[in-house]
């Protein structure tokens, strides 16, 4: 399998005061193979959304590079950037604020086609109809406005918009967390179906660990701007190595009373520290149950513990 996207030492720091930086993404490296889904999980504020947006160059990176087909996107010329933007799309979290209320569904979906001069108005219209049917809406919906739709339907419009320009790679930024349980299943099924039909590659950002497990091939766990563990989906969920991953997995409530009664939880104490003053050493050290002296001093690096299984922790070393 070839790597479609490779992120190398990506950094995104926001200036929040004099000599004060919020390190939203701090030295993150990973790759995404063609046709696979990489899940990115973590608690709110851990930088997963910023990471997704920086990959699409919606934010200027502070450092590092993103390789697309082996070439650094931040070195792209203007016209190359435009075609990169066509290839890489995003689906946003909130279907209520990500659709322009003054535009009809047809204009929303066809906007990308117009911007990239891909086809004439007549062809664009039939393409819109085709897309609407592909995402489970009707062609009659094309002339309506976003407010006439429910949350699940709006998310389908958002998906249709991202598919309009025939992308290769889609960042799904918490596409289901604003939706109800029964609607979530509809959207996830749709995303899985589209992936196999159109040969798409996803970066699936979410905080719902069971949903991420369902859709992903590999999963990365983020904590305070860094990736602490990244591995194949089954491996990560069955043999988590990093104490944070273990705690996170044990905190996920399971909808089964008997399982829930017999579970032992690893309770994390306290809250996630502020990303402005990150702790010295390992960022997780303050909440870690097995932290040693070394953890408070040195920063662990991501190392391969098993095939395709990377962990940044000093355990077993």
């Amino acid at each position, binding site marked *: 399998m070839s790597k479609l996207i490779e992120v190398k030492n990506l950094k995104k720091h926001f200036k929040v005061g004099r000599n004060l930086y919020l390190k939203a993404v701090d030295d993150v490296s990973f790759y995404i193979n063609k046709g696979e889904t990489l899940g990115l999980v973590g608690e709110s504020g851990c930088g997963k959304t910023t990471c997704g947006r920086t990959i699409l160059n919606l934010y200027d990176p502070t450092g590092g590079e993103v390789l697309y087909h082996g070439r650094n996107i931040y070195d792209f010329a203007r016209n190359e950037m435009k075609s990169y933007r066509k290839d890489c799309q995003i689906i946003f979290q909130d279907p209520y604020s990500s659709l322009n209320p003054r535009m009809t569904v047809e204009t929303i979906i066809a906007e990308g086609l117009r911007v990239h001069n891909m086809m004439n108005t007549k062809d664009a219209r039939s393409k819109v109809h085709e897309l609407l049917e592909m995402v489970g809406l009707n062609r009659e919906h094309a002339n309506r406005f976003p407010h006439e739709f429910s949350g699940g339907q709006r998310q389908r419009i958002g998906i249709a918009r991202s598919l309009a320009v025939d992308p290769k790679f889609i960042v799904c930024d918490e596409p289901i967390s604003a939706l109800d349980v029964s609607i979530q*299943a509809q959207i996830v099924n749709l995303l899985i179906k589209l992936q196999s039909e159109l040969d798409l590659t996803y970066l699936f950002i979410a905080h719902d660990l069971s949903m991420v497990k*369902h859709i992903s091939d590999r999963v990365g766990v983020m904590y305070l701007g860094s990736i602490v563990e990244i591995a194949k989906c089954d491996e990560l969920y069955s043999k988590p190595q990093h104490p944070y991953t273990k705690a996170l997995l044990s905190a996920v409530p399971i909808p089964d009373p008997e399982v829930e009664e017999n579970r032992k939880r690893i309770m994390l104490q306290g809250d996630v520290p502020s990303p402005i003053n990150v702790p010295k050493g390992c960022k997780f050290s303050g909440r870690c149950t097995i932290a040693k002296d070394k953890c408070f001093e040195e920063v662990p690096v991501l190392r391969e513990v098993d095939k395709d299984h990377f962990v940044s922790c000093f355990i077993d070393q």
Partner: protein
Amino acid sequence: MMEKILEVKDLNVSFNTYAGEVQAVRGVSFDLKQKECLAIVGESGSGKSVTAKAIIKLIHDPGVIKKGSSIKYLGEELANKNFDQMRKIRGSEISMIFQDALTSLNPTKKVGHQVAQSLIIHQKMGKREAFDKAVEMLRFVKIPNPERRANQYPHEFSGGMRQRAMIAMALVNKPNILIADEPTTALDVTIQAQIIDLLKDMQEELNTAIVMITHDLGVVAGSADRIAVMYGGMIVEQGPKKEIFYRPKHPYTWALLNSVPRLNTKSKETLYSIKGTPPDLIQPPLGCPFAPRCEFRLNICNEKMPTAYPIIEGHDAKCWLLDERAPKVKVFERLEV
């Protein structure tokens, strides 16, 4: 048998809007026993929050609790109490916590004072004494450094800490009933686990009964004793936790249980999904509200709402399939994971 402390019978709540009368809650009945945790589960718009608010009559204009609704707290009828009488009950006998702790706390007052206020009002305590008691309460809900924290404002607290402060505020008068409206929805999983643990501890130590409103079946599996499933403004099924999880009788309950992936399901398998969207409650369907989305609907489902069919003691469901004249369908064969 434990004593019933709350009995809700035939609760109807409507909102008069420009578009028409939204019948948010239609004939909901349930009881709550002492020290019990009842979970009300449903999607947004199913009427679960309105039900919870109606218990302490926090329904404001244009909403009305309709005539004929009965809410009995320790044998006392709350439905016809006036505003002043209700104020004595809110916060001291029945308390409520909300989903979004930041907007529920007063941003201009120190957290300690907000907790103390409830003591000053209900127990006629002096300011100094109430503040000291508030600090104790903050310690009780495991807020580290409570002396310092009591003098801080809500914006200085993190999400989990705010929720703890709100729990402290709700429980400081040792109420008999705590209504928790989506207490963990806005929180991250690790914090969510902390808050659920805290609620369980509080329930043990203070003998408080909890009405938990949630849409998260995982949260319910860990904390509830009994579950009521709401859809389209009605309770379609209620019963003990394990009955609902392992022997659900209503197609909606069954669909809801199947549409969430578990950590042990196979990946990329198609999830069971309910087609369509929830009903419009301005003109609620005559029959069962779930009928248009139900795979097993019969002709009668669109015409008439079924009554509750008892299954075992304490477990009943409103579905025509449970009638002896209905065709036998194997509704639950796909539930096995």
